[in-house]
């Protein structure tokens, strides 16, 4: 039970930073943290029904749920792709504004047009 509460706390911290942190790069980091918390949630819950790896063999009836693991492989990779593209965009924006501050980017971006 405690572990789920801890995961919830991790999720809240990440989401809070994603919303309220002013630096774009911290927002991307926060997105990574939230993603990690969700992946951990899947894996930890999926292992609650067994205590053996997902291989065929004698321990078959005791193994953890292989489904969530296969899903999370995909989710992790998608998260990394999103991170890499957003970082590329941030580098592009830095070339113009020389700041990570979201408010400044907003203000100066509007002035341009």
């Amino acid at each position, binding site marked *: 039970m405690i572990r789920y509460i801890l995961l*919830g706390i991790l999720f809240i911290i990440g989401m809070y930073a994603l919303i309220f942190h002013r630096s774009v790069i911290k927002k991307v980091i926060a997105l990574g943290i939230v993603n990690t918390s969700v992946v951990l949630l899947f894996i930890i819950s999926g292992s609650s029904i067994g205590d053996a790896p997902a291989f065929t063999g004698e321990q078959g009836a005791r193994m953890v749920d292989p489904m969530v693991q*296969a899903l999370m492989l995909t989710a992790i*990779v998608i998260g990394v792709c999103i991170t890499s593209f957003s970082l590329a965009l941030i*580098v592009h924006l830095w*070339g113009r504004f020389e700041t990570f501050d979201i408010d400044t980017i907003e203000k100066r971006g509007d002035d341009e047009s």
Partner: protein
Amino acid sequence: MKMKTAAVHVIVIFALVLLAGCLFIPDDTPWPTDVRTRLVSDGEKDTGAKNLVSAIYLAYRAFDTLGETIVLIVAIIGTMSVVESVKKISDDPTTAVTYDFSLVKEKRSSHKLRTHLLEVVTGKIGPVVLLFGFYVMGQGHISPGGGFQGGTIIASGIMLFILGNPYSKVTEMRQNKILSTIEASAFVLFILVSLLSILTSGIFFSNPLEAAGVKYEYYIIALNALIGLKVGSGISLMCIAMMSRRRT
């Protein structure tokens, strides 16, 4: 104004706590076991993979894996096109030009010793990492690992090679397009293999040569190899594009 922002913070935190409470804290229903039961009885028979995660990842739900590689392709294309446009902005001849990461060409004499060390070490480690990558890639059906993980390890092996090599080698790799050809052809082959199975067995994303007596596990190994080549060359391409950018 201050009151307003404080109120917004309180409301958002309240909503987040509520959501985390409802989404994260499980009630007393036990975790479902249907999928496990089914896979334990049929998984190896259906797919020939001892690693049941691979059985799901590459056989039952291979379509998700295809989607994942597509996301990677798009991310790489997008990142590279943004990187190129950044490069155009900073291609100003008046600014001092140094090359990132590739330490050899850097004009800082104090780094000479370190560079040499790096070259020697990466030269020795690189091939081992590459070999390990191919091992992880090929053994996905019986042990943990698989195409994607193997591909990433291969990419880091290639990175090690590049780190130790002078900048000219990096540009050479960009120029001769071996990596991008591998990436594109592995992707095309991946789709062709999945389409072939429609023609032969009538089921999308299943072993196309089952009737000819080819075991299912060979099909999984082939998929792993294709994904591994695609991912490995794609990630290395992206990293090379990032490294060879000029620094202003």
